[in-house]
C-alpha cells in the first residue's frame, strides 16, 4: 500500500524520532510512505478567522499534490494533521474558502476541491492495516508495560471534522497499546491541553498542566505515556523529571514492538 506522506517542519528538527520510527515501523508493516517531493509548513495553527486565506494555501498545495499522485495523504504530527484536515474540510464544504483559495492557486495552475483523503498515522494503523494485523506482526511484545495514551487537544478536536475518535472517550491509542502487548492505562487528563504554545509566553502554565497530566497518569499506574504531538512531547518531557513517568512518541514504541528500533 502506498501513501503520500507529509512530515512537517518539526519532524525535520526537534521531532526527528517521531518521523524516523514512524517510517521504520511503516516499512515493517509493508506500508510505503512517500514523502511529498515538495512541501511547505502546514501553517502551524488553523486560522480561526474565516477570511484568513493565505495561511491555508500551503496545506492545499500538499493536498493537491497528493491528489495528483492518486494517494491518500498521511500525517504524523498532531498539529499538522489538525490544520491539513480542517483545511481539507473547508475545501469540501465552504464555498467562500474554495473560491478564494482557488483564485490564489490559479497562478500555479492548481485547482483543488477537497478530493484528497487525509489520514493520521494512527488512522492508517487502525483503519488501513488493522490492529489485529499489527498484533500478528509484533516481534517483541511490550509485555507488562503500563502505558497511558496522551491525546492532547489537537488530535481529536473539533471532533466532527477530525472524525477520528470520540474526543471525550477515545480508544484508538489504547487499542494500539493493547495490540503492542502492553497494558493501556486510562486516566482522565489524557485528552486535556498540555499548555501548548503558552510555553513561549508564560512557562508556568504548561508546567502546571504537565504536572496535572503526569501526576494523574502516574496515580492511575502509568509508567510511560505516549503522544503523537511534538509540542505536547516538549512540554511534558520538560517537566517529567522526578514524576516517574516517561514520555515517548507512539512511533518509538511501535518500532520497538515490531522489532525495528535501531540499536535493539
Amino acid at each position: 500500500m502506498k501513501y503520500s506522506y507529509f512530515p512537517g517542519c518539526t519532524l525535520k528538527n526537534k521531532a526527528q524520532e517521531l518521523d524516523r520510527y514512524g517510517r521504520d515501523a511503516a516499512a515493517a508493516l509493508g506500508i510505503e510512505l512517500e514523502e511529498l517531493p515538495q512541501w511547505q509548513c502546514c501553517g502551524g495553527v488553523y486560522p480561526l478567522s474565516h477570511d484568513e486565506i493565505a495561511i491555508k494555501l500551503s496545506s492545499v498545495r500538499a493536498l493537491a499534490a497528493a491528489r495528483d499522485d492518486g494517494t491518500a495523504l498521511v500525517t504524523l504530527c498532531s498539529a499538522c494533521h489538525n490544520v491539513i484536515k480542517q483545511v481539507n474540510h473547508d475545501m469540501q464544504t465552504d464555498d467562500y474558502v474554495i473560491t478564494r483559495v482557488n483564485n490564489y492557486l490559479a497562478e500555479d495552475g492548481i485547482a483543488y476541491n477537497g478530493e484528497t483523503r487525509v489520514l493520521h498515522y494512527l488512522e492508517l494503523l487502525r483503519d488501513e492495516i488493522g490492529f489485529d494485523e499489527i498484533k500478528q506482526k509484533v516481534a517483541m511484545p511490550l509485555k507488562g508495560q503500563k502505558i497511558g495514551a496522551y491525546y492532547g487537544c489537537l488530535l481529536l478536536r473539533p471532533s466532527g471534522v477530525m472524525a477520528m475518535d470520540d474526543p471525550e472517550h477515545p480508544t484508538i491509542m489504547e487499542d494500539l497499546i493493547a495490540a503492542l502487548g502492553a497494558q493501556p492505562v486510562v486516566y482522565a487528563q489524557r485528552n486535556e491541553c498540555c499548555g501548548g504554545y503558552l510555553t513561549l509566553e508564560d512557562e508556568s502554565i504548561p508546567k502546571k498542566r504537565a504536572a496535572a497530566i503526569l501526576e494523574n497518569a502516574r496515580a492511575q499506574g502509568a509508567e510511560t505515556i505516549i503522544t503523537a504531538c511534538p509540542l505536547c512531547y516538549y512540554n511534558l518531557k520538560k517537566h517529567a523529571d522526578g514524576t516517574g513517568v516517561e514520555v515517548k512518541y507512539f512511533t518509538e514504541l511501535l518500532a520497538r514492538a515490531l522489532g525495528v528500533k535501531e540499536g535493539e
Partner: protein
Amino acid sequence: MQKIGVFVCWCGSNIAATVDVKAVAEAARKVPGVVFSADYQYMCSEAGQGLIKDAIKEHGLTGVVVCSCSPRMHEATFRKAVQAVGLNPYMLEVANIREQCSWVHKDMATATEKAIALMQAAVAKVTLNTPLTAGTTPVTKRALVIGGGIAGMQTALDIADAGYEVDIVEAKPTIGGKMAQLDKTFPTLDCSSCIVTPKMVEVGQHEKIHIYSYSEVTQIKGFVGNFNVTIKRKARYVDEAKCTGCGACTEKCPSRKAPNEFNMGLNNRTAVYIPFAQAVPKVATIDPEYCIKLTKGKCGACAKICEAGAINYEAKDEYIEVEYGAIVAATGFEMIDVSPYDEYAYTQSPDVVTSLEYERLMNAAGPTGGHLLRPSDGKEPKTIVFIQCVGSRESCSSGEMRGKPYCSKVCCMYTAKHAMLTKDHYPDTDIYVFYIDVRTPGKNFDEFYRRAVEQYGVHYIKGAVGKVTPEGGKLKVQASDLILNEQLHIDADMVVLAGAIEPNKSARPLATMLTASMDTNDFFTEAHPKLRPVESPTAGVFLSGMCQGPKDIPETVAQAGAAASKVIGLLAKDHLVGNPCVAHSDEWMCNGCSQCETVCPYGAITYEEKEFRMPDRTTKVRRVAQVNPAVCQGCGACTVTCPSGAMDLNGFSNAEIMAEVDALCR
C-alpha cells in the same frame, strides 16, 4: 338542479362593521343556483337558526351556505340545524367572513368584495356537494395499557374502576416501574415505595385488571374500537400460577453474578430472582443468560427446592392474540447512557454515579441498606458534587449534538432532594450543585429548592464542570463559577450525574406498530399540544406519562387519569360513528403504485389483488388501493399524492376544491 340558500351573519358588529352584509346577501341572489338569501344579526342564535330552518322548508333548499365565523366555531351548530329539518348535514358550507375577512381588514369596500368572493366559492362547492352518511363500527370493551409504571398503573386503575376490563403489558417481571426504585419523592419527601407499592397491590388484586408481566407487544392490527394485538409472553421458566413467591429458589441458586437491574447494577442477584420484595406479581423469573441449568445443562437446584413444582426449564415463549377497543402507551423513560460524557469520568471511577444509582445508594432497600457509602471503598463521602443537565439542554448549533435539546424537567428537583436527604443523614457533608439554571416551577417546588440553599447550606454554583479526574482516591473536579468568573478545584469523594431523560427504547418500535407519530426525540406526539394532550393523532391510541415528554409524578398521575377518561369515553360507546369525509379510491383509475400507502400517516390504506372484468371480456388481476374508512382521518395526503387521480376525499373532492378555486379566481 340545486337550490341554494345563503345566510349572511352580522356577528353583531364583528362582521357588519367592516363588511356590507346587505351587499353580500344581494350579491348572493345573482349567483346561479341561489334561490334565497338573507342577513341577520346573530345567525348562530336560536332565531338565526330558525331563519335557516324556515327557509329550507319554505323554498325547498337542497344546499345551504352560511357566511359567518370560522367553521371550527359553528359548523357543527349549523349542521345540526339543517339536519333538524331533514337536510343532509354535509349539504352545508360555512364561508368564513370573520376571522379571514372582517377582522383583518379596515376598508369596507375591499372587505365586502372579499366576503362576496368567499361566499361565491362556498356556493360553488356546495353546488357539487353530495349527501354523506357516516358509518358505524362496534367497540370492543377492553383496553390495553402498555407499560406498568406509575403512569400505566394509574391509567389501568381509573379505566378498571369505571367498570371496563384492562390488560397491562409490562416488559419487566414486575410492575412498578421507575417509581418503585426511587427513595423519596419531592417536594414532600414522602417515601416512594410506601405510596407506589400499595398501588401495585391494588392493580394486582383488581378484578378488572389482568397483568401480562415479562411480556411484550409484538403486533398490532385493526383500528379504533377494534384492535387485534399479539402479546409475546417471554419464557420465565417459572409457572406463574404455581409459584407462591416464597423465594426459596433465590436463596438456593448458585449463580450469583447477574447484575441487579433493580439496584442499577450496583450489586448482583441470583439467576432465578424476584426483582424486589414487593414485586407484583410476586413470582420468580429465571434469567436464561445466567442460569447454569439453561446454559450448561447441569444444576437444577431451584427445581429441587421448589415445593410448588413451579420451575419449568422447558418453557418457551408464547404468543397470544387479544382484541381491544383502545390502547394506551405508557412506556415511560430511561436515563441516557452517560459514558460518552467521559469528561466526568463515569467509566473511570465507580464513585461517579448517575442520579438513579444515587437513589439506590440512599434507599433502605438498596445495596447499602440505606447507608450512603461510596462504591469504591465503602467509605462515607465527605464532599459530593452534583452535575446537572448531563446531556440535557444541549445546543445543536455545531451540528454535533451528543445529548438532547430539551430540559429533562425533573433533575433540578430530585437533585435538591438528594442534597437535602444527604445533609439530613450526614450533616457534615459538603455538597456542591453545578447548574445552568435551577428550574422549579410547580406547587411548593421553589420553596423546596430554596430550603436546600438557605437552610441546608448546599452550595449551588451557576457554572459548568469541565473535568473530573479520578486520582489518589479522590475525584478532582475542575469547574468554572460563571458568576464569580473563577476556576474552581474541588476534591470530591463522589460525583453524581443528572443524566438526561429519554423515552424508553421500546417506544419507537411500538409507535411504528401503532402508526402513532413521534417527535425527533422519540417522544409520542399528542393530537394537539394544548387541547388534546393525552391523545395520539391516531384514533384509539392514548398517551400516559413520560412517553409523551418529561414530567414528574404528580403530572404523570394527572395525565394518566386524563388518558383513562378518554379511554372510558371511547369504551362507553357501543358503536363509533365515523367521519364520512374519508378517502376512497377509484379502482379503475388506481395504478397500484403504493404512494398513497406510503404517505398515509394513519395506516388506513392497504393494497389488494382484485379481479377485474376488462372491456374485452377478459379477466385481469390488478393491485388496487383500499381505504379503511374507520381508520382514515380525512387528512387528504393521499389525494394530492395519487399520480393517477384515483384517490378522492368525500366532502372535499378534487372537483369541489377546484370549483371553489375557480370561483375565487373568477
